């Protein structure tokens, strides 16, 4: 239990509807030794989050089915303690403002600086 709990504590959830982006982020975080749980669909992630403890989620806020903002809103209700890192491919000021209001720990424009991104994820996990 403690192991599994430990494992879950290190796990980083990824949400992006662009498969190649999702996969590349998975590789990137894996290269730093993070445990990664990727989700291609926002709905799948929300389902997972409702049943498991999710310490950190990295999500796009521009997705076909459920927007990143909607996701964030629902995540707040399901798992208020989950730390959110937002990545987006487009500069949508309104969306960005809303996302910031919900309180992400970091915000990145695609493409982003890998070191800063990894640093943000590490900070979110409170990992040295």
């Amino acid at each position: 239990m403690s192991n599994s709990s430990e494992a879950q504590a290190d796990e980083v959830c990824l949400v992006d509807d662009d498969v190649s982006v999702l996969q590349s982020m998975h590789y990137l975080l894996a290269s730093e030794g993070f445990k990664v749980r990727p989700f291609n669909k926002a709905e799948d992630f929300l389902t997972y989050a409702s049943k498991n403890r999710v310490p950190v989620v990295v999500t796009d806020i521009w997705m076909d089915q459920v927007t990143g903002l909607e996701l964030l809103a629902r995540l707040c209700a399901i798992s208020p303690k989950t730390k959110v890192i937002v990545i987006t491919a487009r500069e949508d000021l309104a969306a960005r403002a809303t996302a910031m209001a919900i309180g992400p720990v970091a915000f990145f424009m695609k493409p982003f600086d890998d070191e800063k991104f990894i640093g943000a994820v590490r900070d979110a996990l409170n990992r040295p």
Partner: protein
Amino acid sequence: MSSDDRKSRLSRSAEQTRKESEEQLSLLQTITSELAAATDLSSALKIVLRHVCEKTGWALGQAWLPNEDGSILVCDSDWFCGEDDLQDFRVASEARHFERGIGLPGRVWESKQPAWVEDVVNDPNFPRSAAARTASLKTGVGIPILSGNQVIAVLEFFMRESRDQNERLVNVIAAVAAQLNLVMEQKHAVKELSRINEILQSILSNMGDGVIVADKYGNFLVFNPAAERMFGKGAMQMPPAEWSHHYGLYLPDKVTPFPHDQLPMTRSIRGEEVDNIEMFVRHEKAPHGLWTRITGRPLRGTDGNLLGGVIVCRDITQIKEEEFFRAGQSRVLEMIAADATLAEVLKSLVLLMEEQAEGLRCSILLLHRDGKHVRHGAAPNLPEAYVKAVDGAPIGPRNGSCGTAMFTRKPVVVTDVMSDPLWADYRGLARICRLSACWSTPIVSPQGEVLGSFAMYREEKRGPRPEEDRLTNIATHIAGIAIDRQRQHEILRERDARISLAAESADLAFWVLYPEGNAWMSDKGRRIYGFDSNLQLTCDLILSRIHPDERAAVKAEYDRGCSLHGTFESEHRLFLPYGKTRWVIMRGRCLQDEHGNLLETIGVTLDVSAQKQAALQVQVQREEMAHRNRVALMGEMTASFAHELNQPLTAIANNASAARRFLERGNMDPVLLPQLLQQMVADSQRAGEVIRGIRSLVRKETSEQNLLDLNSVITDTVRLVSSDILNRESVVTADLDPHLPQVPAALVQIQQVLLNLIINALDAVERLPPSERRIIISTRSDKGDVAEVSVRDFGIGLPKDRPDKVFDHFFSTKQRGMGMGLPIVRSIVEAHGGTITAENPPDRGARMVVRLPAARGHVQKSKAAA
């Protein structure tokens, strides 16, 4: 009788002759001295008859005088008889008269010579011979008395003795008779003189002019009654220096005593001739004074020495007063002409009228513009209380003299305000003012409108006299002019004020265009049109301010309106220096003379920019929504392109980074590395695909195509950006080919293309002066199977070497530009099977030409459907 006898008789003794001579001389002396004392012909005759009879021995002497018409001689009542018994002959003589040549007197009368009759009884020409026989008369002699060549009397002497004709005696008697004639003439002259004197006296007494004669010491010799009346008293002896004071003589200023050395009489006495000197005279009998005009002449003796002077004084008081009255009227009229205030004019008028009659007071009241109430006009000599009470009183059929006169439009004569019913409400006032009679006459404008009333007041109960009626006529006439003029002024002033107020607040320009090409414009107008305040305006200058696009149309409308109905109205834009534009409404009216020739065109221009802006705002707001949608869509497209591109780039970056990290740590999974590399290649290809393949993205939407009329799409799209065009003070002109074929296309995408091109063009001309910020959109059909749309600007133009570089991705000449617009445009155009080219026209600017294939088979069908 023979001549010898006569000689013997005549040759008497020398002594006798001497004695006779002495007697005759004594007779002459006696008669001459006595005649001098005779006062008239009758007494002179008596003297002569008596002395001749007594001294020369004649028994009877009598005289004959011609009657009035000179046809007969009549026996005069004076006669002398030396003896007692000759009465009968005298009676016989008195009973007779003689014609010329008849009897002794007739003979003398005719011959004008003495006649001697030696025997009157037997003389053939002596009709009284019977009486002479009875009286025993024997000798008779007749002597004529001549005055000049006229016989004025015939003397007749008789005696009983026979006496020879004695020439000497006849001569003596003739000499005496000549004396008599002399006396007679003298007396006659004196009588004439006294008659002339009488006439003169009569003239002097009765003439209207005053006549005064004074000797050289200033003693009055003549002071006729008219002069006495004029100067209040008659002649009194005093030094000339006291005359002015004593008789009340003043200079025309009415107060300065007339300097005595300048008085007409003084000057006349000095020898001057004085003409028409006007003098004012005031004394107890003429307390208001009178005016006299004096002419004076010196009086000189036959030797030319100054004896004194005479003056003739004419009373010109009436003439003078009339003159003053007319001058007063002129003064009031001048005040009116000089735009003195109505109060001043009316006051002067009232005072002038009051001066014309003793005890007269006048007032002028005005009718309020409501036509129902009285307003104070002028009443300088009526009590304040009365003036205040009347001001604001209503007019009506029983409202005093004035209120009634204005109401009935007829003169109202009230002889006693204390009993007249019209004054029932005003008796208290009348008592205070001590008024008894009040006559009021309405003052009527030339148009027949009642303006007020003129009233005369008197303290005695009576009606107006003709002179007062005359004054009233003059007063109402002048007052009418004054009030009417003031009203016109008021109306003009109000109208002016209203117009200028309206003009100021409504941004209204006034202007006048003259047929010769000159023009005038109000200051406000010059500001609206951007003309310098001292610029000489012409019609062409004003026309040149109209926006070039609308100038021809406005001119055409002006010509059409003026020729059709003499008016025109046009709403258009002005194009001002420094690129400002204004929306204006211009309204004009042509003024013509009676022959229909154009005199001028007057009108106004209303600046409606603000309203237009507001109206546009409403229209624009609606369009703004659509516009924003378009802009959002554009942004969206750009953003989605960016998103599409960023995704593979992100993936590549992540994968590369991951590979590097695995390698650095030496825990690289040999299977993973090729996968990462493979993934990076794939994502790179995908990125290229995104950039190249916007076409496919577009194609997704192009599926919904319709048949479009590009002309109307252009019109709609221009309207969509009209607010931008206006804000940027630019002009977009559409030159559209009406025969343009329809094209099958997606409306939204074609609008996207046009918007892009127009916005680009607006950006391109942004830095130019407003007058050059022009964009021309034109369409034309190329052989019927291609619809060509070109957008041309006059900006900086495209890259010289390769104008089509603009279609490259990320190329931009704009600082803010992303360089995405034209690639998208080209993608859209090409997705529709068309082409887009960019070129630099020969002069300057840029031209983008879009060519889209026309709908061949569908043209007819769609037209039929439409």
